[in-house]
């Protein structure tokens, strides 16, 4: 079985400041990794994914994440946040060749003007 830990339930950041949302996972097999964003009262939108290849993955809206196999981490970063980035961010994992996502508990990103 696999698990995902998002270390911060809430991250307040000033507008135009950089941000990092942390995600660690546990799995006995190789995995695919994802970050999803959920804006208030909306569904989940894929920000970025790591399937294979380069460990630095770029996504939509200026976000990027780095896969670190030795630390079993997949932290999400953005160099300069905007008010519109206020949302809930979910890290998720699925074993390669399997099905169904296991989600972390989410990190609420709060952008302060």
């Amino acid at each position, binding site marked *: 079985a696999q698990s995902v830990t998002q270390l911060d339930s809430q991250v307040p950041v000033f507008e135009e400041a950089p941000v990092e949302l942390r995600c660690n996972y546990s799995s006995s097999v190789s995995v695919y990794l994802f970050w999803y964003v959920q804006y208030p009262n909306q569904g989940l939108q894929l920000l970025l*994914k790591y399937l294979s290849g380069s460990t630095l993955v770029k996504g939509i809206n200026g976000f990027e994440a780095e896969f670190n196999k030795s630390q079993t981490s997949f932290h999400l970063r953005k160099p300069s946040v905007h008010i519109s980035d206020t949302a809930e961010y979910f890290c998720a994992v699925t074993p390669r060749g399997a*099905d169904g996502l296991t989600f972390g508990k989410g990190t609420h990103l709060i952008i302060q003007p």
Partner: protein
Amino acid sequence: DTAVSQTPKYLVTQMGNDKSIKCEQNLGHDTMYWYKQDSKKFLKIMFSYNNKELIINETVPNRFSPKSPDKAHLNLHINSLELGDSAVYFCASSQYRSGEQFFGPGTRLTVL
């Protein structure tokens, strides 16, 4: 065009009632899912169907019964609704084992 759609968006009902939520995807995917998001926003998979065949059936009360009439549709029927069933239910679709899933807008179920 909406890729994954769900109806209804909101559902308010009394305890003990039976209700259904419908999901449709127009992405040509062969696998569909139901997830439950609780009041603390925790997301957990409930079911997965591949080509109309049940693949994942997590520990979910048997009051919940998914039905897939074809690859593009996955409905969720809930019998004898309980207060604890109140949640947001998300449908998703993907190509089997590709990893990337596309989510619908969710159905907020409130049981009174």
